[in-house]
């Protein structure tokens, strides 16, 4: 019903109803296809909203204890920290430091010590990446847990609807053919050669499925492992993640991966044509490449 190629009919064509053929009668038509269901579009933007607030309130929460440890507890009488942010006064004035696996790097101005003039502060992450901008753990927690509920509810709604409408099976789970196409798809991406089709390419399938089925559930589960009450309900959480502090560390690493995904995602949208990509995730309609006519690609 929705995955058929359709010509612009006015619905969902966001006002741009002039067929391409009117511009160049020789070029084959680039059809508008219905690519994203309403479920995907609404949940996509709710994820974007909640991940934005989760990230910035999460960094606020992290700043209250700017160290990551491995194990059940934080080492005060022993050392099990793998990442620490700190500040110190030196002869050249205050400095900020980042220590990763025992190796310390001067990160003054960004990590450990940031701000300027009267706002110069010893804090792990700078004011411009935390909500609120000043140190306020209580508010950070209020915001974080609210959007954690939004994210979890949205994921559940998306999962149920996408299992029913076939989105998961049709668009996300990579098939054998997808895997065989992987090297070529990577090469195409590296050369900024994008295919505009109704279906996701292999890298899209793998990254979206990885985020939706691995990374986000991992974030939820490691988040729950940090809750002392949930540890009581599901004690195995402490075992599968190797302790509350390891879960906190994994939660932080997951955050880093989500940020990297976000950067890659936005860059890909910009590279593939931001107007068309945005239209498809706002209205559902996507202008695809002409149906595969023998159009020899250079060098192939």
């Amino acid at each position, binding site marked *: 019903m929705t995955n058929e190629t359709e010509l612009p009919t006015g619905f969902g064509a966001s006002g741009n109803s002039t067929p391409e053929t009117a511009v160049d009668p020789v070029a084959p038509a680039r059809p508008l296809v219905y690519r994203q269901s309403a479920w995907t579009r609404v949940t996509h933007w709710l994820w974007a909203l909640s991940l934005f607030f989760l990230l910035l309130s999460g960094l606020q929460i992290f700043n209250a204890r700017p160290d990551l440890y491995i194990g059940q507890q934080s080492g*005060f009488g022993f050392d099990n920290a793998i990442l620490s942010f700190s500040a110190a006064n030196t002869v050249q004035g205050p400095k900020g430091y980042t220590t990763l696996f025992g190796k310390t790097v001067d990160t003054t101005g960004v990590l450990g010590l940031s701000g300027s003039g009267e706002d110069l502060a010893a804090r792990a992450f700078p*004011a411009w990446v935390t909500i609120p*901008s000043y140190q306020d753990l*209580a508010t950070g927690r209020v915001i974080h847990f609210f959007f954690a509920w939004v994210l979890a509810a949205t994921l559940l709604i998306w999962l149920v609807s996408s299992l029913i409408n076939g989105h998961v099976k049709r668009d996300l789970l990579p098939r054998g053919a997808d895997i065989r196409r992987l090297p070529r798809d990577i090469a195409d991406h590296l050369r900024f050669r994008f295919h505009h089709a109704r279906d996701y390419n292999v890298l899209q399938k793998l990254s979206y499925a990885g985020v939706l089925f691995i990374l986000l559930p991992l974030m939820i589960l490691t988040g729950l492992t940090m809750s002392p*009450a949930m540890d009581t309900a599901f004690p195995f959480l402490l075992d599968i993640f190797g302790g509350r502090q390891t879960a906190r560390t994994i939660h932080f690493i997951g955050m880093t991966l989500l940020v990297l995904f976000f950067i890659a995602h936005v860059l890909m949208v910009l590279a593939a044509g931001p107007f068309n990509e945005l239209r498809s995730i706002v209205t559902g309609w996507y202008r695809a490449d002409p149906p595969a006519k023998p159009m020899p690609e250079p060098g192939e």
Partner: protein
Amino acid sequence: MAKFMLSRRKFLTSATIASSGLMLSGCDVFDALGDRDNAVRNFIEGANDLTYKAQRLLVGREALAREYPKSEIRQPQRPNGSTDPDDPQYRSLAASNFADYRFAIGGLVEKPLSFSLDELRNMPSRTQITRHDCVEGWSCIAEWTGVPLAHLLDQAKVKPEARYVVFKCLDTIEETLSGGIKYYESIDMIDARHPQTIMAYGLNGKPLPVANGAPLRCRVERQLGYKMAKYVKSIELTDSLAHFGDGKGGYWEDNGYDWYAGI
């Protein structure tokens, strides 16, 4: 080839514009959420009630927090908050090694009671090696010994209308223009009667040190550290938290933290 160069330039330009937009989105636009009376903040605080109800559904009343082997006690219990109260009443009690200290139970009970430290030590006791999780993010494992709170509540015979236990403490946590604010906290009857909720007088096999809340502190193992009031002087059974402090159920709650600290 020319086409490719063009699209790459276009790509880099748009990428730069997009990333500078991100940098400019500095987060002080959301600082109003830090205002405790902000309507949006009050709305999103409602998620904490949802968390409380969901966790009460998922976590059995009697489900125990994990207890660890002795080998996990690898360091002294890290003290936090007040660590050396200089309140005159506390100082004089500490000077006599808490010989004159009495722990009182009042409010909605049939039989208001008070106990000396020796009387508490002679009651049935429970020893547990548990993980203390601070709201800041750190954890520390230690062995706690004390009287189950349920045992004390049974002796005082709690009235059926009681909904909360309020802990009143001897330490001044904050000095304000209108005087010092004493630490206080509260839990519901489910946590109050939980087998691991104890009034602890021992830590790692020794009497509870001053830094960790001597002579008596609470342990509520299924919640965060700020629930576990130190330097407890008395408890009051109540049906409403409205007439304690600012009415939010605890010192940190009055400062914007969640009343339910199971998360």
